[in-house]
């Protein structure tokens, strides 16, 4: 199996608020643990230390922690002298040894925790390390990483359901995200409303089609059965089984062609172009594969349980900017700066 090492995020740096660290390393690192505590979120994570090294000249200590099966958190401690005082900086970044959705989800969750969960504590007893740190959230990166986390989870569900490796990159185009979401809804929700402009469906030229396509020129509810629906996600075709597509206010676009083809009644397939006047359709996937019952494991379950707190934290952080954009102004000034320009 091919693996790649990919640094997921730029290093996240902060000055240490309080803390101590030994000036020497233990002889072996086996069985040492690192503990990350996020008191505001009432969450703590413990993971094995896999490597430690120290560069005495530059007063730098590096600790590698295996936080999940393919994700290593690298913690760098740097001592420096500032204004005659010894100070310490700590930086975190993550290495992803397998470009799987799970690894992206784990790294993105931890990164978002560091940014959004307030002051955190890092403890490595073997190093005599006990630090309190608070990171300043670089909002654009937090926002992007939260989105990666959201998409990575959906991909995890799809990968697990189809037992396939799909993730190649952490950055997706809108169209990729749409396809991922579509398949995720098919697996998890089974029935959902989705944007629908127009699509082509094959019909045989027979009596049954004649009946179905009766009144083709008028908008009506079009309920279409698709025997085998396949959705393309990141270049792989995923079978979702039988689909029922219900188009409210559906109209048929190629009426003249249909009239000609149906008149033959020779059983040959011809394309029917159906358009939705409301721009949506309800998709039902009664036979789509289901997510296997097996649990994700403790770490992932814990990370999923943090959804609500992370969502609230990012919303409140960004919402503060919205409030700030009028915060210092009188009511009259607010009205003035939010008035739409007039050109006449």
């Amino acid at each position, binding site marked *: 199996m091919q693996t790649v090492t990919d640094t997921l995020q730029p290093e996240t740096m902060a000055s240490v608020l309080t803390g101590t660290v030994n000036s020497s390393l233990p002889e072996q690192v086996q069985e040492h643990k690192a503990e990350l505590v996020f008191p505001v979120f009432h969450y703590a994570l413990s993971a094995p230390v896999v490597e430690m090294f120290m560069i005495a000249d530059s007063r730098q200590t590096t600790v590698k922690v295996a936080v999940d099966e393919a994700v290593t958190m690298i913690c760098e401690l740097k001592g420096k002298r500032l204004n005659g005082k010894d100070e310490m900086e700590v930086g975190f970044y993550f290495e992803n040894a397998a470009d799987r959705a799970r690894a992206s989800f784990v790294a993105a969750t931890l990164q978002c925790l560091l940014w959004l969960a307030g002051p955190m504590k890092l403890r490595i007893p073997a190093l005599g390390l006990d630090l309190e740190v608070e990171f300043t959230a670089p909002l654009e990166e937090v926002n992007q990483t939260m*989105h990666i986390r959201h998409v990575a989870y959906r991909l995890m569900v799809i990968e697990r359901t189809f037992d396939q490796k799909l993730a190649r990159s952490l950055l997706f185009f809108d169209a990729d995200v749409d396809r991922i979401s579509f398949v995720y809804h098919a697996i998890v929700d089974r029935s959902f409303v989705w*944007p629908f402009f127009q699509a082509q469906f094959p019909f045989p030229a027979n009596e049954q089609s004649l009946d179905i396509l009766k009144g083709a020129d008028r908008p009506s509810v079009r309920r279409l059965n698709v025997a085998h629906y396949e959705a393309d996600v990141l270049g792989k075709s995923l079978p979702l089984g039988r689909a029922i597509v219900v188009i409210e206010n559906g109209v048929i676009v190629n009426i003249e062609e249909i009239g000609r083809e149906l008149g033959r009644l020779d059983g040959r397939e011809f394309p029917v172009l159906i358009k939705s006047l409301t721009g949506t359709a309800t998709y039902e996937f009664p036979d789509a594969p289901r997510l296997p019952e097996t649990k994700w494991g403790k770490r992932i379950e814990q990370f999923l349980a943090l959804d609500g707190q992370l969502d609230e934290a990012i919303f409140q952080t960004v919402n503060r900017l919205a409030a700030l954009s009028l*915060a210092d102004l009188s009511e009259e000034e607010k009205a003035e700066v939010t008035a739409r320009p007039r050109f006449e």
Partner: protein
Amino acid sequence: MRLALDSDVFTDWRYQKPHTMQQIQDYRKRFGRFPRLTAMTVFEARFGFENKIAKSPSVDERLERDRQGMEDLIRLSGVLEIEERTTAIAAYISARLSQSERNRLRADIFIAATSLAHGYGVATRNQRDFELIGQHLPPQRSILHLAIWKP
């Protein structure tokens, strides 16, 4: 459907209207990101500050601070740019409206056209005007999704 904010909804958010904040929070949970802004919405929001600053005799630190907050919010939300295909949609719509409608809806036409060109719907309070615009769309982009975010 992914959404871009009309100027009225963006202003409601800045005014911290509870129903708008709730809609934005719900949207973010569903899509994993905040709704986008169209370049025209950003223009209108920036014009408000520039218009005030241009009339001020001296630098007003309060205005600068608030403007910075808005700029951060714009950068974070992401902007849908006005591209060549946007102008084609906007021209199609404009040509099919009356002169007075065209004048009155100039900004909304570009908000709708930009959203359509990028495959987005529009979150607005202004149902009537956007439905009017929605009646004059080109055949290739004949459906404008609207989310009406009113209290």
